[in-house]
Structures are given as structure tokens and as C-alpha cells.
């Protein structure tokens, strides 16, 4: 027994004896990421960087992205964030990280040499982690992250399946789209599939048409609480989904379908239209290299305002402000977003580069995606965002409309109830 006591005390002593020392600058940079399909390319580029500069970049992968986010939050609390990492969350959370002193302000590095770094990258991509003057988060204006790729979400169409239904050109308006869908149904082809089991994708589709129907000012006014969700324009947005449901355009089970399965469906030619992001090119290529398809923005339903698709930075990295290797980390990110490396990344992983100069190297189908980059928007670049609980009610309401449980009017009322409650709480 005495031995046991002695053993326990020794153990406790050893454990407590380790004291934390402030990290010293070294020739090693630690990078945490979540992109499984790019891990190999990152490792190779890190090797190349070491040969060129002698600085070792340790690349560590943590997947899936939910686990990655958990790890980042936990590491932030324990103050052990790596030199380079990513924040996979809403802009308000990014703001929290900045205010907690965990993110380096990169504006100076971007503006150096007459803005050479800044100008080499797409402005839309930089906007993802950029905070404007007078932002509602109270963050000092500037650029806080480095985009390493861009994406956007658009509609895809299978040329072969469309031809089977006698359609020769992709639809340009909503009416044409519905007509095409009905022609497809007549020859037994399911018109449309998308991963609307993942709420954000359904939200994205709704948002595209919200911009088209009422314009961005009214949308932001709704977020501020100045316009109600029971407004006819919002009901029109929700009716888009009722219309799709009534005309039989949607694939069965679309409401519980994850994006992975929706991508399978389109790749295996089970549906003629899909709504997905530019990353899908990689997936389709793996599953069906012979797939003949094209890219179009969702066909507008109104001529009042332009339809805006979601797009911008796909993945971006931030630099830990508490890191002793800040400068080296920034230098590495600058190298990673330089034309040469961006070309490598684009070619090996079929993602759109964030460097404008690397556009020439991408495949034709990716070029079609890239063509619409200027009409993109994204929640992260809006002056304010809707409360998450309201968004959840809205997205779940879309699902309810699709399965025929509720009408657009009912959903609008439900969402407004949640909105009123959240506004009363002072959110």
C-alpha cells in the first residue's frame, strides 16, 4: 500500500512538474487543414518549399471538417493554435477569433510592394476574410485571411440527357427551365437533383432567387427587422420551391439527400440538372469521366434585379497572431498563392485557383464555372447576417414546402415568429 502511495505521488509530481514555456521562433511552421483531397499536394508543395527556402512546413490533416472545427475551438481555448490554420465558421465567429487576438492582420503584407500580393488574387476571394470600414462586428478593417481557391455554386446540365428530350440549348429563364423539366419527365428522365439534405445548399438556392426577386437592399432590410418575412416578395421566394414541387421537377428524397449522394446521382446520369459547387468537377471526373455537361447560373425568375450566385473564397488560411513564426508563415502563404503553386493545385485537385494568373491552366469545364465569378455574392461579404435560428427555421421551412407539409404562407409566418422572438431577445 505504501508503495502505491509513493507511486501515485511520483506520477502526480511528474505530471505537474512540466511547466509551459513561451514558444521560440524556429525554422518549422505548423499548418492544420481539413482538405483530404489536397493533402498529398500540400505535402509535396511543403517538400518543395523546404528545398527552396530551408523552412519546414509541417502539414497535418484533420477530417472531417466538423472534427476540424471542434479541434480549432478547443485549441483556441487552450491557446495552442498552430501557426497556420483555418476558421470554418460564420463571419461573426471569425470576428470573435480576431478580437481574441488569435488572427494576424495581413493588410500590410497584402499592400506591400504597391499591393502586389493583393492584386494577384481575386477581389471576391479576398472579401471572404476582409472586414470593411464600419463593419458591425467592431473589428478593425483589413484583410485577415488568405484564400487558396475560389468556388461558386451554379446549375449544371447534362447535355446528353437534354438532347434525349429534344432540348438543344440550356434554359435562360425560369419558364424555359420548367418547360424543359416537363419535356424531360415525358421521356422518363428526372429533371433536377441537389444535396438539399444539407440545409445550406437549399438556403443558397433560395438566396439566389431572393436576390433576383427583391434585390439586396430589401434582403438586408429584412435581416435588420425592417421588412417582415411575410412580405409578398419573400413568399414569392418560398413559392419557387412549391412550384418545383408541383411541377414534379425535383428528385424523390431530395430533402434527405446529402450532397455526396446528389453528386453520385448527377454523375450516374440519373438527373438532367444539378445544383452544386465547382468542387463537383473532381467528383464527376472520378465517377464518370465521359460525362458531357455544362454550367449555367440558375435561370432567373424575375427581371427586376440580377440573380446573384454564391461564390468567393472556397478555403482560406489565417495566421495565428500569437505565433513566433508569423513572418515565415505569411511568406509561405504568399508562396502558396503564387501563380506556380496555384497552377499545381488547380491541376491536381481540379479546384478554381484564387490567383488570377493561374486561370489559364484550368480545364474547360472549370472555365465555365469561373466565367461567372463577377456576379457572385456570399453571406461572408454581406454587411450583416441573419440570426442562425431564423436561418434554421427558414431552411427547415423550405424542406417542409418540398414534402408538401406546409404552404409558403405558413412557412413565412413560422419564420417571422422566430424572427420576432430573436429580435425581442436583442439579437
Amino acid at each position, binding site marked *: 500500500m505504501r508503495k502505491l502511495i509513493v507511486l501515485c505521488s511520483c506520477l502526480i509530481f511528474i*505530471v505537474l512538474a512540466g511547466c509551459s514555456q513561451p514558444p521560440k521562433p524556429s525554422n518549422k511552421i505548423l499548418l492544420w487543414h481539413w482538405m483530404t483531397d489536397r493533402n498529398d499536394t500540400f505535402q509535396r508543395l511543403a517538400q518543395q518549399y523546404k528545398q527552396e527556402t530551408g523552412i519546414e512546413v509541417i502539414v*497535418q490533416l484533420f477530417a472531417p471538417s466538423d*472534427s476540424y472545427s471542434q479541434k480549432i*475551438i478547443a485549441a483556441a481555448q487552450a491557446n495552442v493554435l498552430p501557426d497556420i490554420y483555418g476558421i470554418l465558421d460564420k463571419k461573426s465567429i471569425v470576428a470573435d477569433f480576431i478580437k481574441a487576438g488569435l488572427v494576424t492582420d495581413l493588410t500590410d503584407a497584402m499592400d506591400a510592394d504597391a499591393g502586389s500580393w493583393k492584386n494577384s488574387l481575386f477581389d471576391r476571394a479576398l472579401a471572404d476574410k476582409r472586414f470593411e470600414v464600419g463593419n458591425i462586428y467592431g473589428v478593425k478593417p483589413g484583410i485577415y485571411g488568405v484564400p487558396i481557391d475560389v468556388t461558386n455554386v451554379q446549375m449544371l446540365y447534362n447535355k446528353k440527357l437534354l438532347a434525349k428530350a429534344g432540348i438543344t440549348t440550356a434554359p435562360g429563364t425560369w419558364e424555359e427551365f420548367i418547360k424543359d423539366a416537363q419535356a424531360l419527365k415525358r421521356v422518363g428522365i428526372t429533371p433536377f437533383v441537389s444535396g438539399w439534405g444539407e440545409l445550406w445548399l437549399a438556403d443558397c438556392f433560395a438566396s439566389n432567387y431572393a436576390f433576383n426577386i427583391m434585390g439586396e437592399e430589401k434582403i438586408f432590410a429584412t435581416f435588420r427587422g425592417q421588412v417582415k418575412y411575410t412580405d409578398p416578395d419573400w413568399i414569392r421566394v418560398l413559392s419557387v420551391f412549391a412550384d418545383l414541387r408541383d411541377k414534379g421537377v425535383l428528385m424523390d428524397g431530395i430533402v434527405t439527400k446529402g450532397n455526396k449522394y446528389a453528386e453520385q446521382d448527377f454523375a*450516374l446520369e440519373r438527373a438532367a440538372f444539378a445544383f452544386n459547387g465547382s*468542387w*463537383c468537377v473532381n467528383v464527376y471526373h472520378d*465517377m*464518370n469521366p465521359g460525362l458531357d455537361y455544362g454550367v449555367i447560373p440558375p435561370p432567373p425568375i424575375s427581371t427586376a434585379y440580377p440573380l446573384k450566385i454564391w461564390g468567393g473564397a472556397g478555403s482560406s488560411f489565417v495566421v495565428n497572431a500569437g505565433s513566433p513564426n508569423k513572418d515565415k508563415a505569411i511568406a509561405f502563404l504568399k508562396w502558396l498563392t503564387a501563380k506556380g503553386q496555384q497552377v499545381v493545385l488547380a491541376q491536381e485537385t481540379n479546384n478554381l485557383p484564387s490567383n488570377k494568373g493561374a486561370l489559364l491552366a484550368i480545364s474547360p469545364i472549370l472555365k465555365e464555372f469561373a466565367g461567372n465569378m463577377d456576379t457572385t455574392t456570399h453571406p461572408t461579404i454581406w454587411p450583416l447576417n441573419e440570426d442562425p435560428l431564423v436561418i434554421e427555421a427558414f431552411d427547415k421551412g423550405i424542406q417542409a414546402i418540398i414534402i408538401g407539409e406546409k404552404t409558403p404562407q405558413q412557412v413565412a409566418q413560422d419564420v417571422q415568429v422566430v424572427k420576432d422572438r430573436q429580435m425581442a431577445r436583442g439579437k
Partner: protein
Amino acid sequence: MNTNRYVLWGMTKSTLIHVFLISVALTCLFPIFWMVRCAFMTNETVFVDQGIIPHHLNFGNFAIAWTQGNFAVYFLNSVVYTVCVVGGIVLVSSLAAFSFSRLKFPGKNIIFYMFVAAMMIPLPGSFVALFVMMNKLHLINTRFGYILCMINVGLSMSILLLKTFFDKMSRDLEDAARIDGCGKIGIWWNVALPLARPAIAVIVIFNSLNVWNEYILATLLLGDSQLMPLQRGLMVFQGANSTDYPVLMAGLTMAAIPIIVVYLFMQKHIVKGLSSGAVVG
């Protein structure tokens, strides 16, 4: 006539039972068959080929899974973690359960009910606190830290099961051992543990399964890929967007084999009488 009818009824009953068992068994075997079948295809054919046996057998996936997934390292890590955690749990929980069952000390019941209650309170929101504390103890990114954490995960159920088993232990054997000069540890080692073999077998199976299939805590608490367990290696095949199904299935098949082997070894101990009369909650 009566005998014939009785025999006929007996045969029908026997056939029906067989049909019942076989049909359920088929639904259980189906996933294994499906996994293996997928493992022999390519990403392009995996959803298209309708044949029971794939038209074109692709043998390369297993090799790809092994090398690309860095399988050897992750596999070894998983084996180490499973052995250490299960061994640790059996040791620690049997000591504790023995004390709860046979020995007395103040606060015994309170502590026991705390262990039992722990099974009922999920801790999804606790990972932040866990990480912060592990970091203070310098256990982040260490095998030791991960093993300790996983031991904790399996403690409650193991202690409950073992305590109910020890409760049923005959006092005579214990007294005999004491007369022979065994101390408390002696009784634990010589009498309690051998008698509890079926319960220990269940605990070994249950916890081996848990540790083998675990990846959430591994992703959280470990950093270097050299320390990662098998499931983490399989995650690599489930790309953020593009999943290489055949290679993933090959990997999953290889990952499922050891755990089935463990079950095969342990299950004959269970049947020797898990309840031996009664297992009381």
C-alpha cells in the same frame, strides 16, 4: 396417426425455425458481401455494375488502401491503443468493481452511483474542457493521454457489469481463499477474476469495438499522423467531396477483420454462462 402428425409438426417447426434463422443471417451477411464486392470494383463501375460478381475484378484496391492510407502505421497504432485501453479497463474496473462488491469504505455507494450515472449523461459539449485540461497536463498529442481518455470512456459500463457479477460470487470460495492466507489482492486475482471470465469477455469485446471504431477523440487529442488510429486513416478516403468508394470499402474490409477475430476468440467465454443464474441491474 397421432405420432405421424406430431412428427410432421416437429419437422415443420424445425424447418420454419431454420428458415427464420437463415433469412435473418442473410440480412446480416449482406453488408459484408456488399463491402467485399465493392472493394473489387473501380470508382466508375461501383454503382453501375449490377452483377452479383463484378464483371471486371480489380484487385488493386486493397494494395492502394494499404499504401495510400498508410495502413501499416495506423493499424499498428490501433492495435496498441486497443490492447492498452482494454487491458487498462479490465484491470482498473475489476479492481474497482471488486471493492464496490466485496469491500467496505465510507462513500462507497455514492461513488458507485456516480459511475453508473455517468453512463446516462452524454458529454458532447465537453470536448473543449477536455482539451484544455489535457493540454495543461501535457497529454495532448501523446499516446498515453489518448489511452487514458479512452479508458475513461469504457469505465462505467465495465464497472457496472463486473460488480453485478462479483455480487453473485460465492462467499465460500472467498472464505476458503482467505483461510489459505490470501490478502484482498489475492482474493481478487485468484478467485474473483477467474469466476468473472464471461463478464470480462463481454467487456473485452465491447471496449475493443469502441476503441477500434473511434476517431472523434483521436482527431481532437492527437496531432502527428504517426499516432493516428485506423479510422483516421480511413477518413482520408472519404475526401471532403470526392469519395473513392472501392478503396474505402477495401480499407473497411481490412479494418473489420481484426475485430471479428477478437469476437471469435472471446465469444466462447461468454456462452459459458454470462448470467450464471442472474445478472442484476
